[in-house]
C-alpha cells in the first residue's frame, strides 16, 4: 500500500511554485530559479529555453512532457540523466521527477518515490497554453482524450487509478483477442477482462461526462470572448456501449467476434472523442488556422476555469508565446480570461514589445539566454 507524506488538498488554499531546479533538462545544465509570485515575463531569443522552462514546470505538475511522449528526449543530449524539482509554497513540499541513466522516470515527493509519475497529478495544478495544444483542435482523438484525462486526474486522483485499471484490462483483452486468432479461447476468460474493463470504463466515462458538462460552456464562452461573434459548440460523441457497467459489459461481449477479426477492441473509453463546431461547421475539417488556434486556447482557458471553480483556487498558468500570434483584441480578451485570474502566471515571448504594456508593467521581467535566467 502506498503511504503518502501529504495529499493534494483542495481546500487548503493556494499552492504556488517557490523554486524550480533543473539538472540536465533539455538545453539546461544547472538552473535554480526563484519563481516570482504573480505575473512573470520570460523573454529570450528563439531556442533560448523559454518553452523548456514551462515544460519543466508542466512536467512535475502532470508527469508528462509537453512535446514528446518519450521521457528520455528531455535528457540533455550530452548527459545521461536529468532531474526537475520544484519547491511548493506555503508547504515547502518538494516534488520532482528524475530520469535515471537506466530505467524509467521516478517521481518523488520530499525525496520519497511514488509508485507512478501520474501520482504527482494534483500537487501543483497548472494550465499550460502552448503551441503543443494545437492537436486539440487539429489532431486525432487521442490528444483530446489525454487532455480530458490529465485535467480530470488533477482534480480527482481516483480517476487516474480507474483509468489505469481500464488500460491494463484493455491490453489484456487485446492480447487475448490476438491469441484467439490462433487457438480457441474459452469465453469465460474474455468475460473476466471485460468485467474489469466495464467497471472501470463506466467510471471513466461518467467522470468524463461530469467534467465535460462543466468544461463545454466555459470553453464556449471563452471562445466567444476571444473570437467575438462566432459560437463554438462542444459535444461528446456517441459513447458506444453506454455509461453503465452492465451495458458496457454487454457491448464488449457482443463485439467479441468482430474484435477477434481485427485483433483489438473496437469500442470503449479508449475510442471516445468530443466534437467541436463553429457556427455548425466541424473545426477539425473546416476551421481556419486562426479558428483552430483559438479553439485550442479556449479549451485550455475553459479547463483553467473548471479547475479554479472546482478547487477554489486558480492553477498556475503557463502561457507560451501564444500572445504574439494573436491580434490586440484577442490578446486583451485572453488576458482578462486567464492572466488576470491567476495568482501565479509565467508568460514567454521573444520580445517584450509584443506584449501589451499593461501586462509588462505588472510583470517581473526575466531574461533567458545560454541556459541561464537573469532578472532584468
Amino acid at each position, binding site marked *: *500500500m*502506498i*503511504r*503518502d507524506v501529504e*495529499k493534494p488538498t483542495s481546500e487548503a488554499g493556494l499552492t504556488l511554485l517557490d523554486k524550480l531546479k533543473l539538472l540536465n533538462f533539455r538545453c539546461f545544465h544547472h538552473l535554480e530559479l526563484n519563481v516570482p509570485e504573480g505575473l512573470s515575463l520570460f523573454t529570450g531569443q528563439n531556442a533560448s529555453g523559454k518553452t523548456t522552462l514551462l515544460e519543466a514546470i508542466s512536467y512535475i505538475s502532470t508527469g508528462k512532457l509537453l512535446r514528446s511522449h518519450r521521457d528520455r528526449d528531455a535528457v540533455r543530449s550530452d548527459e545521461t540523466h536529468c532531474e526537475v524539482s520544484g519547491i511548493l509554497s506555503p508547504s515547502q513540499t518538494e516534488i520532482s521527477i528524475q530520469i535515471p541513466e537506466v530505467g524509467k522516470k521516478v517521481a518523488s515527493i520530499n525525496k520519497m518515490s511514488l509508485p507512478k509519475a501520474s501520482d504527482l497529478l494534483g500537487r501543483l495544478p497548472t494550465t499550460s497554453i502552448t503551441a503543443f495544444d494545437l492537436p486539440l483542435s487539429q489532431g486525432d482523438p487521442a490528444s483530446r482524450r489525454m487532455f480530458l484525462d490529465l485535467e480530470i486526474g488533477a482534480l480527482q*486522483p*481516483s480517476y487516474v*487509478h480507474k483509468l489505469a*485499471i481500464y488500460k*491494463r*484490462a484493455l*491490453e*489484456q*483483452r487485446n*492480447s*487475448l483477442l490476438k*491469441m484467439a486468432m490462433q487457438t480457441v*479461447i*474459452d469465453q*469465460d*476468460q474474455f*468475460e*473476466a*477482462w471485460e*468485467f*474489469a474493463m466495464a467497471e472501470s470504463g463506466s467510471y471513466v466515462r461518467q467522470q468524463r461526462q461530469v467534467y465535460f458538462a462543466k468544461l463545454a460552456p466555459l470553453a464556449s464562452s471563452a471562445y466567444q470572448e476571444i473570437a467575438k461573434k462566432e459560437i463554438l459548440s462542444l459535444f461528446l460523441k456517441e459513447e458506444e456501449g453506454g455509461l453503465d457497467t452492465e451495458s458496457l459489459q454487454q457491448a464488449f461481449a457482443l463485439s467479441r467476434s468482430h474484435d477477434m477479426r481485427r485483433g483489438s477492441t473496437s469500442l470503449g473509453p479508449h475510442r471516445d472523442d468530443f466534437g467541436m463546431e463553429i457556427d455548425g461547421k466541424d473545426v477539425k475539417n473546416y476551421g481556419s488556422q486562426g479558428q483552430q488556434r483559438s479553439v485550442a486556447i479556449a479549451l485550455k482557458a475553459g479547463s483553467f476555469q473548471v479547475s479554479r471553480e472546482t478547487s477554489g483556487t486558480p492553477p498556475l498558468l503557463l502561457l507560451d508565446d501564444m500572445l504574439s500570434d494573436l491580434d490586440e483584441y484577442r490578446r486583451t480578451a485572453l488576458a482578462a480570461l486567464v492572466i488576470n485570474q491567476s495568482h501565479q502566471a509565467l508568460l514567454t515571448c521573444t520580445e517584450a514589445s509584443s506584449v501589451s504594456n499593461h501586462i509588462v508593467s505588472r510583470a517581473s521581467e526575466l531574461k533567458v539566454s545560454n541556459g541561464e535566467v537573469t532578472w532584468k
Partner: protein
Amino acid sequence: MLFAKPFAELVGELEKLPGIGPKSAQRLAYYLLQQSDGQVSALVTSIIKAKKDLRFCSSCQNISEADQCPICLDGARDQSLLCVVAESRDLYAIERAHEFKGRYHVLHGLLNPMEGVGPERLRVKELLSRLESGMVQEVILATNPTIEGDATAMYLAKLLKPLGVKVTRLAHGMPIGGELDYADSATLMSAIEYRREM
C-alpha cells in the same frame, strides 16, 4: 568485450533467472568464480537436491517433499474449506496469521494474456478435480486485489459456482490501525465500495 566461452555460458544461464539482468548476471558470475570449489559445489548440490527432492503436493500443488504436504496430511484441518492463492508465498503469509484452519490450493500464477498465461498454465484442472469428491463446501478466492488477481478470481468463480460450492473473495479495504488521511486513493475507494452496514 569478448568473454571466455565458459564465462559467457555461465552469464547466459544466470541471465535466465527472474529479476536478473545482464549486469547482475555478470556480477554474480564474477562472485561465483571467486568462491572456493567447496562453496560452489555446495550451491550446485543444493540446487540439484532441491530439484530432485521437491515436488508439488499432489493435492494443494504447494512445494512439498512428499507426495502430500504436511498441511494436506493434517487431519485436524477443515476439509470443507479451501483457500485458493496465486503463489506459495501467499499461503505462508496466511499461515503466519494462525487464523485459517482450512486447506489451500496454489495456482502458481495468475491469468495474464499479455504474458501468454491462460488457465492451462495454472493449476486450475487440479482445483476442479479436488472439488469432485464433494467434501469442499466453500472456496475462498484469495488472489491479490490487482487487476490480474481480480480477473483470475472472477474467472474461477465462474467455473466453480455451477459445481454448487460457495465461492467467496477476500475483503479488501482499510488496513487495521491505518489512518484515513494516509490511505492511498485506490484503497480508500475500495474500502468505500465494499463498506458494510452496522
